């Protein structure tokens, strides 16, 4: 009895510490990424980006955050209040839950649930739900079109995303993020065995996070601000926060599944993990500031005509090579 009690206690402590750590990381990550995005965009566009607010503009995101805290939150008259209020809250749940299973290093992980990747995938569907709530609840036409686009897009890209992860699971026989990361010791990164799967995953996940060239749900030149057109102040900031955290999460999954996770020589695991993740984040930013946006039918067809068949072939080839 006592032993069990001790165990629960220890687990609880670990959980709470993890929770605080994750919350701090989420906020910090969003601050860093907004700053980085503006800096990266600036340098790609032959300008400097934030510079005057703090050294190298580092205090800029903090100023933005405080400003948004002190900003009036408007609730338009014609919205569906429950949906409208809940949407920015719900979008945060998958964001936070995903962090439970991400292995930052061999020991740094809130809890290694043995169906880790399934938890992330299952919860990530919630964000679509939240976007639909935001779009429909706003009673705004741009928001509605944005939300419906977002659903179709998420639907289209969820399948190649799943299919791209399957070969890795086949090779490791595990859903556990840590087991998968551990399976890639040395330079046995799965990206070398599964380059096609990696590419499919990367494209699909960029689409899942609504980033250019797949940013149709919030396409500024068509839909003003898309599904969050009617959101102001802190509610809008929550969508923003979720978006940036999602970028990190998909990069983290990619690193864990394909780029050897926290494994690497000389440096401690967490450094490698963050290094690789932020490199991928940088690539996603790079894409955003380089490419135009695809059209809606093209978006769906890239997935259905190219990615899904390709993913199937890749799956079969993997299956065949493993068995024959």
């Amino acid at each position: 009895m006592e032993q069990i009690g001790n165990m629960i206690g220890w687990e609880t402590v670990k959980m709470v510490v993890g929770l605080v750590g994750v919350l701090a990381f989420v906020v910090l990550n969003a601050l860093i990424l907004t700053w980085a995005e503006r800096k990266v965009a600036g340098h790609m566009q032959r300008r400097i980006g934030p510079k005057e607010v703090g050294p190298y503009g580092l205090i800029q995101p903090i100023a933005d955050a405080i400003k948004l805290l002190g900003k009036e939150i408007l609730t338009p008259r014609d919205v569906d209040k429950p949906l409208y209020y809940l949407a920015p809250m719900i979008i945060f749940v998958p964001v936070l839950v995903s962090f439970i299973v991400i292995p930052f290093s061999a020991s740094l992980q809130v809890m290694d649930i043995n169906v880790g990747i399934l938890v992330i995938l299952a919860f990530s569907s919630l964000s679509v739900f939240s976007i639909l709530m935001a779009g429909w609840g706003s009673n705004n036409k741009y928001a509605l079109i944005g939300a419906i686009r977002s659903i179709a897009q998420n639907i289209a890209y969820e399948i190649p995303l799943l299919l791209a992860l399957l070969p890795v699971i086949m090779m490791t026989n595990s859903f556990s993020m840590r087991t998968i990361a551990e399976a890639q010791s040395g330079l046995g990164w799965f990206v070398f065995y599964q380059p096609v799967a990696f590419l499919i995953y990367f494209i699909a996940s960029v689409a899942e996070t609504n980033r250019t060239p797949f940013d149709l749900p919030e396409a500024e030149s068509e839909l003003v601000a898309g599904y969050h057109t009617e959101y102001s102040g802190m509610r809008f900031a929550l969508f923003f926060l979720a978006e940036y955290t999602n970028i990190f999460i998909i990069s983290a999954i990619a690193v864990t599944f394909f780029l050897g996770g926290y494994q690497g020589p000389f440096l401690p695991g967490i450094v490698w993990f963050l290094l690789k993740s932020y490199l991928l984040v940088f690539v996603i930013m790079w894409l955003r500031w380089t490419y135009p946006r695809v059209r809606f039918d093209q978006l769906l067809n890239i997935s259905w005509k190219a990615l899904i068949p390709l993913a199937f072939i890749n799956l079969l080839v993997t299956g065949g090579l493993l068995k024959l």
Partner: protein
Amino acid sequence: MNNLQEFAPVVLFSVVALLFTLAPIVIAYILAPRTKGARTLNTYECGIEPYGSAWVRYGMHYYIYALIFIAFDVDVLYLFPVALNYAKGEKPDEFYALLCFVLILALAIFYAWGKGVFTWKRKFSQ
């Protein structure tokens, strides 16, 4: 027991996530000034009074995609347990099973493709 315990953090994190999002909104309500104009709370539509509500029948031309998706997503989920235990068997039977399953699935795509689901016709009335 032990299995369910594993998911305790999931529940905890979900609840905290909801609470966490409340905090800044409450702070903002306390800090932010408030103004009201006659049209402040109107729905935004480029500064024009919107014509009617957004809650009307919306022609979704991609409902067929949704139908295919439902079929597919469920089927792809079947593949996850398969993948989990794939390499454990010694014989190549699993591969043939997988081959059959995937080919049948792929057939659906090619059928839809042939049916023209993936071509978006421009609708010209002239």
